[in-house]
């Protein structure tokens, strides 16, 4: 358990991906194989059996430390985590223990069905054998989740580095069905329980943003124009009777989208589709915020399925009849793709339409209306282009529409990092809500160095309050904030959250009284739903 406790500590302290991966690799190099299986299980959301309620843990801790309940509550407020509060409150352990992580998990498992006295005796004894950080782990095993910023992809990269196996294969293996109580580490990473050959994805072809006028691309007839969808880029694979859905983040997300599982019955074998996972109703694309309700969930409720039905807008064909199709031209790929998708009939898998138009001006006009169909602009793909791996300038362009904007006033400032560590560069903005100001976004970028210096000196002179590194400033400076979307949010006081906010420009011409109101944003939210 000591090794795992140390790993958690390292992972928590670093916010650098490379450092986290290094810590994981180090761990996988030295830890017990049975422990490794559990670490993979815990980090991918598989919980061990939890035979004890967390309320009991708290109660026992209060009892043996004779801490008044209100003082426990005060401590909890300061620490912010129940498992940790308990671990810190307890007196130092009188003994040590060399039990491994998996042994603790097995011991906990064996407590199932036992009476509370037996459980209590076990826990009290355990606490008396563990250091603070180990106690914290034990408490977490019983009552919480390890939220330490390790994504599936990070975990897979570490395992790939450590085992010299291919990362896509490992991703497939750990995302498959397996039981941590039974499988060995070797079986798990080698994917004995799955057929990893079937799931191989291709690298996505990516587009550059079009910054020049589209006319510079030459004759429009050499190009295919499509709507640019604002969803999750996805690759759907069917090989040997198995279906896999990969996201752009190179995560296997098959289980998250049951609406697409029918494809296993209707798609021909040996096929790979490229497209966009979207919230779709009556063949119409819904807003990204609707789709968001369906992302990164371990379980999906019936209500979520109803509120945010998933569809897949297909725009490319990478493999067909088990042949790599990426060396065919776009027009050839599209021809076959249309046949395949038309053959599916009525389904949530929809051919992403090609926009028919004969001039750039006409396309530019159509583009203005992108938002009305929840598109964020236009994709331009050269008809005779092959499907490239990654980003390659020239053949694929994204021609996005201008972002939404709002005028807001700065109310908090915080120092940046790196080159800007000595300047206040991270700002929080607010809009008016009646007499009050309510925060709507935080943004880091968008000002020139000269402007940053100016704002910095304003913040230094007009700081009202300090909260750690944050300064409350006089609401005076108005900025135009650009953003890509708006969604309801219970987490934010404003009740809504902006997507990808950034500073467009400093509106020195405007006064704080002239900024937008929360009502303005609410109306925008309503209009996009």
């Amino acid at each position: 358990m000591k090794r795992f406790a140390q790993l958690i500590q390292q992972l928590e302290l670093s916010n650098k991906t490379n450092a986290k991966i290094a810590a994981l690799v180090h761990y996988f190099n030295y830890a017990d194989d049975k422990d490794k299986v559990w670490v993979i299980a815990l980090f991918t959301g598989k919980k061990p059996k939890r035979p004890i309620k967390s309320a009991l843990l708290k109660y026992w801790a209060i009892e043996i430390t004779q801490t008044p309940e209100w003082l426990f509550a005060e401590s909890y407020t300061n620490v912010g985590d129940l498992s940790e509060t308990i671990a810190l409150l307890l007196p130092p352990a009188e003994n040590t223990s060399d039990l491994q992580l998996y042994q603790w998990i097995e011991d906990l498992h064996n407590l199932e069905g036992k009476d509370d006295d037996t459980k209590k005796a076990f826990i009290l004894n355990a606490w008396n054998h563990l250091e603070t950080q180990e106690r914290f782990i034990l408490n977490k095993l019983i009552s919480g989740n390890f939220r330490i910023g390790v994504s599936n992809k990070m975990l897979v990269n570490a395992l790939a580095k450590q085992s010299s196996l291919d990362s896509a294969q490992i991703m497939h293996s750990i995302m498959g069905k397996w039981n941590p109580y039974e499988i060995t580490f070797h079986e798990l990473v080698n994917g004995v329980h799955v057929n990893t050959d079937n799931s191989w994805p291709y690298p996505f072809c990516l587009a550059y943003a079009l910054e020049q006028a589209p006319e510079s691309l030459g004759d429009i007839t050499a190009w295919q124009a499509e709507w640019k969808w604002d969803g999750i880029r996805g690759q759907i694979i069917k090989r040997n009777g198995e279906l896999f859905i990969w996201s752009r983040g190179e995560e296997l997300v098959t289980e998250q989208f049951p609406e697409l599982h029918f494809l296993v019955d209707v798609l021909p074998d040996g096929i790979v589709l490229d497209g966009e996972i979207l919230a779709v109703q009556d063949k119409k694309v819904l807003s990204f915020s609707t789709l968001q309700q369906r992302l990164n969930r371990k379980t999906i409720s019936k209500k979520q399925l109803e509120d945010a039905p998933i569809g897949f807008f297909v725009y490319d064909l990478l493999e067909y009849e088990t042949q790599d199709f990426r060396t065919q031209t776009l027009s050839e790929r599209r021809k076959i793709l249309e046949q395949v998708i038309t053959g599916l009939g009525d389904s949530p898998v929809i051919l992403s339409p090609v926009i028919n138009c004969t001039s750039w001006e006409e396309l530019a006009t159509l583009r203005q209306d992108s938002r009305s169909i929840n598109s964020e602009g236009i994709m331009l793909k050269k008809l005779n282009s092959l499907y490239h791996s990654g980003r390659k300038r020239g053949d694929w362009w994204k021609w996005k529409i201008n972002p939404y904007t709002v005028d807001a006033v700065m109310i908090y400032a915080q120092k940046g990092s790196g080159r800007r560590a000595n300047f206040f560069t991270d700002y929080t903005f607010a809009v008016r809500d009646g007499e009050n100001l309510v925060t709507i976004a935080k943004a880091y970028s968008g000002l020139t160095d000269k402007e940053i210096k100016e704002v910095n000196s304003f913040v230094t002179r007009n700081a009202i309050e300090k909260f750690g590194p944050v300064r409350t400033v006089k609401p005076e400076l108005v900025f135009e904030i650009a953003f890509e979307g708006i969604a309801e949010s219970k987490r934010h006081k404003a009740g809504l959250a902006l997507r990808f906010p950034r500073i467009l420009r400093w509106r020195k011409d405007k006064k704080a009284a002239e900024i937008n109101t929360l009502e303005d944003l609410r109306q925008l939210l309503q209009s996009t739903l």
Partner: protein
Amino acid sequence: MALIEFTKRGIYCKQGDFYIDPWWPVDYAVTTHGHSDHVRFGNKHYLCHTLTKPIIKRRISEDLNVETLEYGESITRNGVNISFFPAGHIIGSAQVRLAYKGEICVVSGDYKIEDDGITTPFEPVKCHSFVSESTFGLPVYKWQKQEVVFNGIQNWVNNNISQQRTSVLIAYSLGKAQRLIKNLAGSVPIYVHNSIANLNEVIINAGVNLPETIRIVPEITKEALQKGIVIVPPVMRDSRWIKNLAQPVTGICSGWMQVRAHRRWQSADAGFALSDHADWNGLMEAITATGAEKVYVTHGFTAAFTRFLNEQGIEASEVLTKFGQEDDEESKVDLVAQNESKLP
């Protein structure tokens, strides 16, 4: 009549007509220690411990009018007997004992119970009323012995050196820095920021035995720094200077590092729970040892700590002060230190 009252200028002794650690300028300020939230510019007279005198002269102004006392010594002012006892917080820190017509009050400033190896250790003083800080007045703050913490720091440093990383410890120039130097000296060279080197000079001149350190100047190579320990004040945190070192890793030494959320909030690579303030047990131990009938709780978790004392049968009340801001990375003193010593 009580010996002290809490006014908007600070803790005031009416009978003696003087203040203790006032935050607005007064005629006569008794000073517990040299941290910027306890001693400010502008008082006509200062009374402090012998070792605090050169520190505040260096940090505030050479022109200060300062009287000094040793621990155990006393003077009388308007009939009030004033004496100093070790507070164990930083070099020169003192608890101020006031005695008048049989009534005894102790203002402890900041204190810690553990002997840190460089500060005269805390000594409990019997009194009727006691003014206590409560910086870490929650039972989740219980320190490990400093040997354990320093072993942890030393292992961290050794590990960094073996991996060609530069170990940068963030510590207050006054107090924490000297404690680190004293307890980490011996294995590898210790390099210190100008503001720390300046204070070290003052402290050594005052007769304190401090291990040798090297002032950071532009001539010192990154390779040399990588093989040693670099100590800088909080104001240098996230600075470009640190980022330009050879694979820098930063470690923050503060009691707040006891809690994960605080460790994660700081953008450091390591956190070491090392504090110059008493932990929960230390506060309780100190207060019990005074035998005080009345406890005034200042800066920290005042509400919770006061309530707990009252529930334990120790009469306590909360007092609002301006203490406890030395933790601020931008305290005036540190900014001064930065200006007088731009690093290479």
